[in-house]
């Protein structure tokens, strides 16, 4: 518990005879150290959650380095061979390459398409604005399977099934609205007077965009791109519907390894792939958290001013 910084307090000290509780000998603004039962309950809940979380993480890591692990607390020996064999058996290099290509392509297209749209929605009023906004909201509110299955059917009919193109296109469906939803409030914060001043000084639309707006938008675009990256790498449902052996992203490849015919692959192989996935994702998230807040990672809510 932190005590308050020594700001001069203006409120009068409490009358001495009124305080007969434990708080009598506390400086105003200092909180008691003895916690209420509810606090203990909260901490117990948090602890239980994190024990589960850390337990899950560590058990997979231990499993991925273990030789055989059936009846003891720990595997009999430790080895890194699973990583080597996962690398060769599944073509991990290819899978990671596919994942990165898909994520990059989705980010570039979603930003290129989404940012101009967000700019118009933030700045202008025009007929059918509400309807268009709703259209961009729908894919975010629906379960991915609901629009994913008809979309995948269309892809297969067009002969795009199992191709990289299909995986990229399918991932764009939730990503473009997501960029629009993230960028619209961000653009609304930028003072329109800046653009108007540039226009009055004779800059055309292109100049306004490149010299004025783009530099101001960079932080927002970065945040949106990182969020799209996290979502695309983690996206299972949509990718799974249209991807095939050559276009599986990492998540889907692990799932297929777990559910392969004949009870799935050897457990340690799957574990090592899962560890590779988590390490990749953590790497992305560590970079991400420098630009966005944890809340933004889960949904689009305005930043609280605590930090």
């Amino acid at each position: 518990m932190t005590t308050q910084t020594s700001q001069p307090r203006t409120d009068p000290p409490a009358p001495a005879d009124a305080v007969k509780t434990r708080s009598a000998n506390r400086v105003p603004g200092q909180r008691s150290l003895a916690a209420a039962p509810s606090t203990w309950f909260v901490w117990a809940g948090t602890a239980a959650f994190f024990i589960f979380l850390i337990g899950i993480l560590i058990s997979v890591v231990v499993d991925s380095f273990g030789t055989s692990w059936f009846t003891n607390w720990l595997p009999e020996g430790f080895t890194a061979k699973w990583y080597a064999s996962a690398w060769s058996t599944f073509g991990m290099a290819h899978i990671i390459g596919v994942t990165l290509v898909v994520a990059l392509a989705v980010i570039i297209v979603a930003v290129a398409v989404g940012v101009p749209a967000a700019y118009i929605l933030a700045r202008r009023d025009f007929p059918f604005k509400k309807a268009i906004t709703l259209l961009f909201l729908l894919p975010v509110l629906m379960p991915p399977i609901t629009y994913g299955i008809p979309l995948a059917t269309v892809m297969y009919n067009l002969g795009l099934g199992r191709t990289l193109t299909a995986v990229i296109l399918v991932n764009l469906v939730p990503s473009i609205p997501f960029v629009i939803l993230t960028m619209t409030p961000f653009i609304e914060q930028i003072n329109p007077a800046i653009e108007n001043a540039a226009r009055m000084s004779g800059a055309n639309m292109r100049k306004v965009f490149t010299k004025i707006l783009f530099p101001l938008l960079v932080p927002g675009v970065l945040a949106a791109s990182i969020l799209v990256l996290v979502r695309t790498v983690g996206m299972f449902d949509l990718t799974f519907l249209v991807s095939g052996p050559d276009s599986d992203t990492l998540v889907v490849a692990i799932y297929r390894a777990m559910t392969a015919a004949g009870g799935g692959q050897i457990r340690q192989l799957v574990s090592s792939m899962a560890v590779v996935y988590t390490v990749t994702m953590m790497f992305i998230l560590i970079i991400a958290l420098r630009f966005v807040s944890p809340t933004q990672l889960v949904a689009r809510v305005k930043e609280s001013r605590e930090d």
Partner: protein
Amino acid sequence: MTAPTIAGHKSTKSTASLRHRLAERGIDISLLMLVPALIFALLLFVYPFSYGIGLTFQPSAAIQKQWGAGAFSNYVEFFKDPFVLNSVWLTMKLALPAALFNVLASIPMAFKLRRRFRGKKFLTTLLVLPIALGTVLTAQGLLIFAGRQGWLNRFLEQIGVIHQPLALVNNYLGVFFSLVISGFPFAFLLISSYLSGIDPSIEAAAKTMGANWIQRFRRVILPLLAPGLATTFILTFVLAFSVFPSARLVGDSMGSTRVMAIMAYRAFGEQTDYGMASTIAIMMGLVELVVIAVVLMWRSFLYKGSTGGKG
């Protein structure tokens, strides 16, 4: 314009060009910036979706023969075949309790942790960990950690709480756990940010008037938080409702966790009956919309005003 009519309005042709008049209504060349996004939305969302709805009315020959209801056979199958219809209840049985648990457990936590304390940033950062784990590693981890030979059962046996390993995976519980692991941080972070949007001085005012903490929570905080709770519940529910990988990996995908997403995928990938797959997928959307509508209706009876803060 030819002969000028007397009824002025239509005939007094504005001297402004068409372009100018459109611009007054907010239509001009810069709206073209919307076009790419609209094209993507139409081609990748509206068209496939309409096509999918069309597909539901083109049942396969087998289903048509079975139910003989012409174009509506897929829907008849959906409602008449208990194997299909049951999956709706199974999905609800998973998604509703999980979403409720995540939201309800988040409220006291967010409440306790709303003030600044040492390590708060660290804790919030840790909460992002489940995103890094992803559904697949969470499933794998649960199988190992909470399995029959896993550390959890082993530990509980060691301290003598249980004598047989508990069946925590490959059943309903396993999927529930994975939904909590992925959904709880989500709900907590959202509720925390809504809570920080409520002006603390409102609660302080209630405190000065002598309201104890239960009254303050019930009469002040809860009404202000309700819209945020509704939104959080909806988003958490959407996540839990479309659960798919974990239902297959840590659940019992033939029994208690045969959720709609699995049924839809089986029709799509294994039976390649695109019509039936689209039917299940679209019914999934409808069921979810019903739940969302109910939540929003409940919310519309509540206070909708300023929370006096930053939210």
